[in-house]
Each structure stands twice: as structure tokens, then as C-alpha cells.
């Protein structure tokens, strides 16, 4: 197999770093609104019928959206095995909480309306709330901890040792990121409900969406400020071979105040990412008032794109810094899979990702239109 030499190892690593971003953004921009809808469910819907309308706005699509998360997990495993190994085992209890919360979602959607009991339904509504809120919070907390650096070490055989516990993750900066993530996805969920429903439900979603968008703007600004004032970045010290074998211990790195802003100074175009984050969220605020529903949703996606990209760009080439052994930090140049695997996976992604986008778009088109009362009461397919 010589074909993979067409692209240098370095190029493939950068492409896979971009694809990592694409998958995370894909997840947040699609399943993100499902999580947001879950969070808003008990509030945007007050009566049983209203809540069923809220649930059915995402009923047919959440399952497909969630695959972005599954694919994200698989792609990290395939393209960045050390990242998968360190983050999933290090954030062990947090991952368990995410899994437990996510398990509640499918079951909640499917089983909630199968029985008439009001108590049964209300319990599932709160389960769906947890299924939206907990993952949103933890994803944000995890990103905050990644920016801070994670307390892991690598042995000479590259065995992973994690020095922190679950409660170490709950520091003020990471919690700020967690709340930002909750606000951002609540905004996204609200934009979706507004698009897919009408009347009082849409009205309430509009109100919550406005607050969430405002919170997103403020928390994102606060996060950036806190990152500037209180969080030290990381920097590779000495030489690193972008085409070298994937062994994090082959390089050295150090903690460096302000390093997370160095990329913006060196490449000012990167400032576009945080700018889009702010503009998107402000746009949602404005668009919710003027009532263009599709535009609101797209602006919300733009905010998500900007905010997540800005995290990645700040850290490049770091992916997962180690706070206790900076030299073991995982970077784009030493935490990928082999040249051949990256190439094969790129070919597969190049074939299938466009197909996925096409048929997903078709499904959304088939399901176009608002969920009305009669969709719930007639037909018998609704959740």
C-alpha cells in the first residue's frame, strides 16, 4: 500500500485535527438542539399536550443526530487513540454520568407516552431534562479542564496514569465552561422549538431562547477573560517532528502564561472564530425578536461553530495537555494513529460523510413543517 504516501503524515494529521473539530461541531449543531430541547422540556411545555409537542419536534431526528456523538467517539478512537484512551479513562466518572444520562433519552422519548399515568409521564419528562442538562454541563466542564490541563502521566510503555479524581474536575473555570455549554445548547434548543412549533410553546421557547442567548454572550466573554487572566497555556519547548512517530514522550513541553492566545497573535485571521461566536449569539438575540425562524437556527449554529473552533484554535497543536507532566501532553504531532490508518479513515470519511449530509438533509426536508396538535392526537405514531 503506497497510496497513502500521497499525503504527508503532517498533512493528514492536520486534516484529522480539522475533522475532529467538524465532528464535535456536527454533534453540537445537531444533537446539541436535542439536548437543549430536553433541558427546556419541563418549562417550554406546561400541559401534557404541550410537552408532547416539544418532544415530537425532535422525535424523528434525535436518533440520527446522536450518531454524531457515536461517530465522534469512534473517530477519536481510530484517528487519535491516545486521546481516546486518556480522556475517556481520566474523566471516568464524568463519562459514566454522561452515559447514564444519555441512556435516559431514547427510553424517555419512546416510553413516555406509552402509558396514560400523569406521574409516569412527569417522571420521564424530568428524566429527559436530565438527559439534556447533564451531558451539556459535563461536556463543557470537560472542555474547561482540557484548557487547564489534565493531571495524567505516561509510563515509558505509554501506560496511562491519572492523578486526579472526579471532584478535581469541578473547579471554577471548568464550571464556568460547563454553564456556558448549557446556555449555548439551551439557546440552540430554543431556536429549534421556535422553528418547529407554534402558539404558546413557541412563545415560551422564544423567551427562554432570548435569555439563553444573552447568557451565552456574557458567559463566553467571561470565559475568555478568565482564560486570559487566570489560566496558563502550554507550549512545545524544543523541536518536534510533525512527521515523526506518534509517541508523546518524544517531545518536551512547558506551561506558559498567555500561550493559549499566542496563535491569535501569530495568525490574526483566527480571531474570526471568537468573532463568529459572539456575532452568532448576538444574532440569535436579534433574530428571535424579528421572527425569522430558520435564520435564528442558522445563527445559533454559527455561534456554536465559532465557540468550539475558538477552543481548538487557541490550543493548537495541543489536543490534551498534561498539567503534571507537560512533556506527555498529547498534540497533533504525536497523538495520532499511523500514517496508513489516517489515510484509510480519510478515504472512508470522504466517501461517507457527504452521503450522510445528503440523506440527512433529505430526511429533514420530508419532516419539514411545524408539529401541530393534530400530529399528536391523530395517526398514533407520535411520541
Amino acid at each position, binding site marked *: 500500500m503506497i497510496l497513502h504516501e500521497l499525503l504527508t503524515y503532517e498533512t493528514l494529521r492536520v486534516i484529522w485535527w480539522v475533522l475532529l473539530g467538524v465532528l464535535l461541531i456536527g454533534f453540537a449543531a445537531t444533537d446539541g438542539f436535542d439536548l437543549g430541547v430536553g433541558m427546556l422540556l419541563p418549562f417550554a411545555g406546561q400541559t401534557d399536550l404541550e410537552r408532547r409537542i416539544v418532544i415530537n419536534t425532535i422525535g424523528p431526528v434525535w*436518533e440520527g443526530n446522536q450518531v454524531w456523538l457515536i461517530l465522534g*467517539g469512534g473517530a*477519536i478512537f481510530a484517528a487519535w487513540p491516545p486521546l481516546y484512551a486518556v480522556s475517556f479513562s481520566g474523566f471516568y466518572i464524568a463519562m459514566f454520568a454522561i452515559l447514564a444520562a444519555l441512556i435516559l433519552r*431514547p427510553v424517555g422519548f419512546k416510553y413516555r407516552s406509552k402509558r396514560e399515568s400523569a406521574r409516569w409521564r412527569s417522571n420521564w419528562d424530568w428524566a429527559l431534562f436530565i438527559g439534556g442538562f447533564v451531558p451539556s454541563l459535563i461536556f463543557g466542564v470537560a472542555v474547561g479542564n482540557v484548557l487547564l490541563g489534565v493531571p495524567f502521566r505516561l509510563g515509558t510503555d505509554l501506560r496511562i496514569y491519572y492523578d486526579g479524581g472526579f471532584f478535581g474536575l469541578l473547579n471554577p473555570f471548568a464550571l464556568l465552561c460547563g454553564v456556558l455549554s448549557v446556555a449555548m445548547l439551551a439557546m440552540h434548543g430554543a431556536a429549534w422549538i421556535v422553528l418547529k412549533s407554534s402558539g404558546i410553546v413557541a412563545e415560551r421557547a422564544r423567551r427562554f431562547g432570548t435569555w439563553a442567548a444573552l447568557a451565552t454572550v456574557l458567559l463566553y466573554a467571561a470565559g475568555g477573560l478568565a482564560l486570559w487572566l487566570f489560566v496558563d497555556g502550554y507550549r512545545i519547548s524544543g523541536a518536534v517532528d510533525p512527521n515523526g512517530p506518534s*509517541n508523546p514522550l518524544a517531545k518536551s513541553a512547558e506551561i506558559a502564561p498567555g500561550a493559549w492566545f499566542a496563535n491569535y497573535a501569530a495568525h490574526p485571521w483566527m480571531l474570526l472564530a471568537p468573532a463568529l461566536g459572539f456575532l452568532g449569539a448576538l444574532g440569535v438575540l436579534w433574530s428571535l425578536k424579528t421572527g425569522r425562524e430558520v435564520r435564528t437556527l442558522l445563527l445559533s449554529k454559527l455561534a456554536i461553530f465559532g465557540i468550539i473552533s475558538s477552543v481548538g484554535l487557541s490550543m493548537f497543536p495541543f489536543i490534551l495537555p498534561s498539567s503534571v507532566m507537560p512533556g506527555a501532553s498529547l498534540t497533533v504531532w504525536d497523538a495520532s494513529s499511523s500514517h496508513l490508518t489516517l489515510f484509510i*479513515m480519510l478515504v472512508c470519511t470522504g466517501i461517507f460523510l457527504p452521503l450522510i449530509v445528503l440523506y440527512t438533509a433529505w430526511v429533514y426536508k420530508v*419532516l419539514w413543517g411545524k408539529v401541530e396538535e393534530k400530529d399528536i392526537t391523530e395517526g398514533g405514531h407520535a411520541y
Partner: protein
Amino acid sequence: MELDIVTLSRLQFALTALYHFLFVPLTLGLSILLAVMETVYVMTGRAIWRQMTKFWGTLFGINFVLGAATGIVMEFQFGMNWSYYSHYVGDIFGAPLAIEGLMAFFLEATFVGLFFFGWDKLSKVGHLLSTYAVAIGSNFSALWILIANGWMQHPVGAAFNPDTMRMEVNDFFEVVFNHVAQTRFVHTVSAGYVTASVFVLGISAWYLLKRRHIDLAKRSITVAASFGLLSAVSVVILGDEGGYLASEHQKMKLAAIEGMWETQPAPASFTLVGIPDMEERTNHFAIHIPWVMGLIGTRSLTQEIPGILELVDKAEDRIRSGIIAYDALQDYRAAPSRDAVPPEAVTAFDQHGDDMGYALLLTKYVADPRQATEDQIKSAAWDTVPHVPTLFWAFRIMVGIGFVNVALMAAFVVVSARGTVTRRPWLLKAAVAALILPWIAAEAGWIVAEFGRQPWSIEGVLPTVAAASSLTVPTLLFTIAGFTLLYSVLIVIEMRLMLAAIRKGPQPDHGPEAPLLPARFAAAE
């Protein structure tokens, strides 16, 4: 059994995998049966077939959500509990999982929404295609997960890279077209088809016994029995093929399944029943059938199948050889650059590198395999023997049920063709009683395949003891308790909803008929 990190991690993996596998086979098979029923509906236009599709679809949906929900746990657990495994083989093992997402999960999960919500929004053909997409997606996901699993059983197309301290792929086509993976794929999906067939058959038989929904039940039986018979035969044939391949690649697993302690002169006899004894290293009260084992394992009358004792001796040799490889690897890594590696270390690693996994078996006893004592080497060699009684019985349960299923399906094909199915209450009762069997067989099959792979996580390459994450016992106890609680509550809810839906039966379906094709195609006709 000691409650250490590896044991607890294995326990959690087994719990979550066995639980996940309660739902997967039914999803695999029922998706195909739904596609068959809906095809008949679209081709004949008879409403009963739409009603059947919707009714079995409701049950499919209740089952599907738990399969999907617990599937995420499976994918995340490798990184959570098996981080050294993830590092060591992620370069090969991660790819099929990612391709599974790209090729299969998206298709399945995107269209399953349309299956339930699209009846009034799509033309008949449009809806049928959505159903096909669900069936194709779920079966493709089985293909890729079994390619990943096949590589754990028979790792091909990869080599150890001392620079990165992990296995790396060198021939991806070998990984994909691994014949162990292909055999296991067909065996597993066929078992899923049988599961769904027995499910449809058993519930339909119950309706007939209660004299309810006669039309729907009779038609369902016809479909399930014919599909089920083909699948049940395929399960047995491919299972036999799997046994043949095991004699090539996983001799120890085969010997343990058979409880064959000593190497017998060819052709070996098959122990039908008996009580294997790990302490005495023999079987009590064994009943043998001459020749059969030799025929299954080697398809010849002259080739020997090695027994457990002989294989343990071989494992000991490989451990000693592995220690040489391990030693060479340390020299290799101590060298400042690749060119500075002492040539004798390179030669030693080339010669013994394939056995390095065997040296890692010693990490259970000693941090540095080179420091192992003679006793530790002997113990490690005996560790390569999986728990014989468990495998022996799990295998016999699985195979026994496999044959019962063939008989059941054949009987229903006959009575169904003669149109006498309602006049055979004993057969209907048997079908209801058989409902549980495929699940027992599937769980037993998992035990034979995966518990039988022990002590390896990757056969011959990475022992399970070396694969786990550096977690703590209290953490693991917490998550095991959490999963157990959550999963127990959910299965109770699932069973009750399933039973309620079965009791309620198919719903009258008077909805307007959708056009055959979307309007813009219809106009062109």
C-alpha cells in the same frame, strides 16, 4: 475470585455486553422481517401487510431504543476501562468502529425516525426504502463490529511498532477480509434472524392459541418460519465453520470447549456430556462419540487436534521466547536513535517478536517479565487455559438450542405450507415455550466467543491483565452498581411495555393509503 481492577473491569464489560446483546439480535432480524412484510404490502397493496409491518414495528421500536442506548456504552467503555488496550491496538481496532458509525449507524438511526413518523409523509416506495435503510444499516453495523471483534480473535494485517509502543496496521484489507471475522459475521446475523423469527413465531402462536388476530398471526408465521428455517440452518453451518477455524487459530479455545485435556490419536472423539474438572485436569462421567471431534475440527480423519496439556507446554515455550523479545525491545528503546539499536537486539526482536504478548502474561505476577521465576512462568502458561467447565457447558447449550430451532422452524414450515397450523395446538404451545431460547443461545454464544478468548484481550498479542485502565476498585464498584441499577430498572420497564403492546395486539389501521410513488414521479408515468 479476587476483586481487583482487571476482574471488576471484566465484570462490567461482561454485564454491559451481555445486556446490550439482549436487544441487538432482535433488532438485526426484525428489521429484515419488517422489510419483507412491507415489501409484500407495497407489491400487493393489501392493507393487512401494512398492519403487520406497523404492529411488529411497534415491538421493534421498544426493543430498538435499548439496543441503541446501550450501544453507546459499549463504544465508550474501551477507552474508559481499557485504556492500555485502546492505546495498544487503537490504530487497528478504532477504524472499524468509526467506519461502523459512518456507514451503518447514520443510515440506521436517520431512517428509523422516518420508519415511525413517515407513514403519512412518504409515498409507499419512499417508506419502504426507509425501512430497507434501517435493515441495511443495522446489518452493516454488525459487519463492522464483527470485523473489529474478529481481529481480537485472530489479529492479522498488523505489526508491533517499537517507536510508538503499539500495534499498527500494515494491511487493512487483511483486517477487513479476515475470514474469522466474515464467518462470525454470518453466524451472528443469522442468529439474529433466528431470534426475530422465533419472536414473531412465538407471539403469533400465542395469538392463534387465544384465537385472536388470526389473519395477521398466520401470515406472520409463514414469513417467520421460512426465513427462520434458512437462518437456523445457516447458524449451524457457520457455527461449524467457526469450529473449524478455531482449530486453526484458537486451538486452546477449541480444546477447552471440548474439555479435551490430552491429545487424542486422530480422529478425536467428541465428548457429548461430562463434568470437566479443572483441578484434576480430567472429565468425569464423560460420554464420547468417536470420530466426530476430529471431523469438526480438522475435516479429516488423520489430523490430530492438540489437547490442553500439550497446548500449555507450547504456551510455556512461547512465554520463554516472548521474554527474549521483551528484552530486545528494552535494548531497542534504550538506544538514542533507530540506527544506534544493537543489531543483535533487532535480530532477536525479529525472531521472537510474535511471542511478546506471551511475555506480557507474566505482568500478572511481576512488573518486569525478565525477572519472572520458573514457577511464575509455569503459572502463566496455565493461565492460557480458559475456565473449561464454563466453556464446555455454554457451548453445549448454544449448540443444543441451535438444533432445536432448526427442528421448530422446519415443523412450522411444513404445517404452514399445508395450512394446518391452527390444528396443531401442541406445536403452537411449543413455539410459545421456545420464545426464550434464542436469547439463551445468544448469551451462551457470547460466553463461548469472548470468555473463551481469555486470558487474551487480543489473542496472542495483549493479555487482558495488561489491557485495563489505572482505575480504583471503589470507582469500579460505583459504576458497576450504577449500570446494574439503571439496566435492571430499564429491562423491567421494557418487558412490561413489550408485554402490554403484545396483549393490546395490532391496532386497526384505517389511515388513507399513501400513493405508490411521490407525486412528481407519478406524473411522469
